[in-house]
């Protein structure tokens, strides 16, 4: 019983939130890693691409809500998601044509493209704030919980409650579907294979007749879709506020680098590593240890390694450790 109570407390405050957060980071990191693998630069505008896609979704959701369309117990935002993806795709294809293409044709160095992406980041950041404003926006509807903490307590008779928000479940399911589709696309379709070929060896790919502009366009479309899904899931599960996506950039990059830049599998693993580290290092273990340890060893302090204020510092620490000891990441990524 003691053990179960401890485990439920752990699930409630660590496992469930970390899995949901990890899925959101993994989707974000996948986008970063694809750009890095195929277009060969770190896209700093990724966080704001997420914000832009999420913003379009929010606007469409509001429109749907106002004319009475709903998705039953599921959030209406899922119905609006395809529109959000379309909006984000248009946006990134436009920026590619107007900005990145110029530098690609000049064969600029990756570092120049990184700086260019920062410019794009500030532009998108501004556009999103001009359109929807800098404040928090509410667009969630539908059923809020799968299991409520109090119901769980009554059901099981345990002292600790376990709450699973429907948005957390939706996040995990949607992320799993998106990742499965992505891997199927990369491994089984012709376009996916040409993308991988282009990523492995650009010159050889060009020689074998792959159209580079097409590969680039498809990459942007996939990245925009992933970014929008990640952004909407994050907004649904937490809250939508343009600035938070900018802040997400750090953990997303940490995830991509930890997993190995350019390696899609690594991005997913990295997302979960970063999410679990962030949550576990800033969690106060007093309650869980109180259940698990014998009374004589029960801690009197909070057993919190780092105050929650330093959550983002965890991403930095992981980044530094990985770059020092395993620069190519857990799964072999590219290191230019």
């Amino acid at each position: 019983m003691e053990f179960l109570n401890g485990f439920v407390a752990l699930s409630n405050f660590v496992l469930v939130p970390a899995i949901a957060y990890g899925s959101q980071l993994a989707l974000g990191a996948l986008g970063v890693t694809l750009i890095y693998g195929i277009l060969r630069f770190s896209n700093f505008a990724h966080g704001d691409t997420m914000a832009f896609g999420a913003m379009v979704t929010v606007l469409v959701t509001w429109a749907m809500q106002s004319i009475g369309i709903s998705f039953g117990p599921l959030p209406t935002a899922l119905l609006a998601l395809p529109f959000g993806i379309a909006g984000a795709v248009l946006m990134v294809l436009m920026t590619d044509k107007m900005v990145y293409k110029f530098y690609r044709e000049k064969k600029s160095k990756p570092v120049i493209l990184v700086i260019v992406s920062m410019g794009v980041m500030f532009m998108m950041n501004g556009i999103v704030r001009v359109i929807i404003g800098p404040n928090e926006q509410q667009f969630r509807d539908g059923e809020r919980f799968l299991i409520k903490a109090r119901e769980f307590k009554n059901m099981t008779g345990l002292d600790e409650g376990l709450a699973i928000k429907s948005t957390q479940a939706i996040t995990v399911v949607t992320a799993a579907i998106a990742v499965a589709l992505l891997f199927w696309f990369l491994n089984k379709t012709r376009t996916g294979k040409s993308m991988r070929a282009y990523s492995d060896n650009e010159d050889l790919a060009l020689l074998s007749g792959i159209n580079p502009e097409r590969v680039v366009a498809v990459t942007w479309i996939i990245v925009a879709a992933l970014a929008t899904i990640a952004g909407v899931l994050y907004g649904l599960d937490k809250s939508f506020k343009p600035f938070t996506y900018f802040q997400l950039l750090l953990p997303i990059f940490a995830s991509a680098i930890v997993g190995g830049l350019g390696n899609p599998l690594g991005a997913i693993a990295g997302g979960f590593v970063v999410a679990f580290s962030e949550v576990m290092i800033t969690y106060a273990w007093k309650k869980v240890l109180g259940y698990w340890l014998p009374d004589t060893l029960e801690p009197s302090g909070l057993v919190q390694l780092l105050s929650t204020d330093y959550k983002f510092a965890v991403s930095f620490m992981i980044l530094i450790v990985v770059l020092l000891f395993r620069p190519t990441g857990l799964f072999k990524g590219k290191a230019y």
Partner: protein
Amino acid sequence: MKKLLTATAASALLAASAVAAEDVKIGVILGFTGPLESITPMMAAGAEMAMAEVTASGKLLDGSTVTPVRADSTCIDAAAATAAAERLITSDNVNAIMGADCSGVTGAILQNVARANGVVMVSPSATSPALSTAEDDGLFFRTAPSDARQGVVMTDVIMERGIKTVALTYTNNDYGKGLADSFQAAFEAAGGTVTISAAHEDGKADYSAEVGALASAGGEVLVVAGYTDQGGKGIIQASLDTGAFDTFVLPDGMVGQELVDTIGSDLDGSFGQYPGTDSKGSEVFQGLAAAAGFDGTSAFAPESYDAAALIMLAMQAAGSTNSADFAGKIMDLANAPGEPILPGELGKALDLIAAGQDIDYVGATAVELIGPGESAGNYREIEIGGGAINTVRFR
């Protein structure tokens, strides 16, 4: 031309009749420029309304008139505020100072000018706990409560419900930290236990990590010293989502209908307090202010009226406009026993004092001065129920 002549003649007559009495000058030093410039005009209007009322009654010290002299405290620049106060005393010869507004400049003026020249200072709005212990030679008073006071009131509210252990989270700024510290000190002094005191940052998307730490520390209720539209709301939402806490204690920054509307019925049973009074004085004051053409509900305008009124009543009680004589009278006048005095009754109060009777100045904010001459403050204890903020009582 004729009109002008009459006016000149009239004012000459007035001036002549005032020669026998005195022209009392009171400095009104507020931040007319700077961060508080939006509310200081109403504060000054409140103070000047009290002075006009006393002048019109003609009962202060055998028909003395009271003239306000404005000066700019800037709210943030201690050097500029000190220079302005210096000018009030040395070149305008004010008998007392109504001000200053912000705690920092108030402390600077008190130490550098008021004490050096022995002039009484009554601040309507400085709320820093540090001013309670500042050296003041008995010259400094304030009609606003110290921030530390809310910590004590909140302790009473919680203790009276039989709650002994609480978790505490505060927004990471001067307001949150100050309130959290004063509450923790008061609560622990009263025999309660604060299991954790953790800061939260405003404007984040997700507070589940913060709530995880709070839940781990435990406590019967969670005290949230934050803002309704910021981290405070996020903390409450995340606590309810994870079942970490069911009941929340809400200090002034957290009491708002918007919070009740967004969170819904889960917030029922949570309680708290914010500054407020049911005294008739505030109603009367608002009526007077409306008649005088300014907004009486503006923050600290009633406190300013009371600050100015107390200065003038104390002069009457001491029979002198010299700070050294009347400084000691302020506390007596503000507190019971005696005839309660509401705004607009200053003339009556002056009569009573002249007749040697006790008065209890209630004023616009139900002033009660405690400790080193600061307002005890009046708080409205509230409880959330049925989607509304219900008043339990006033304390």
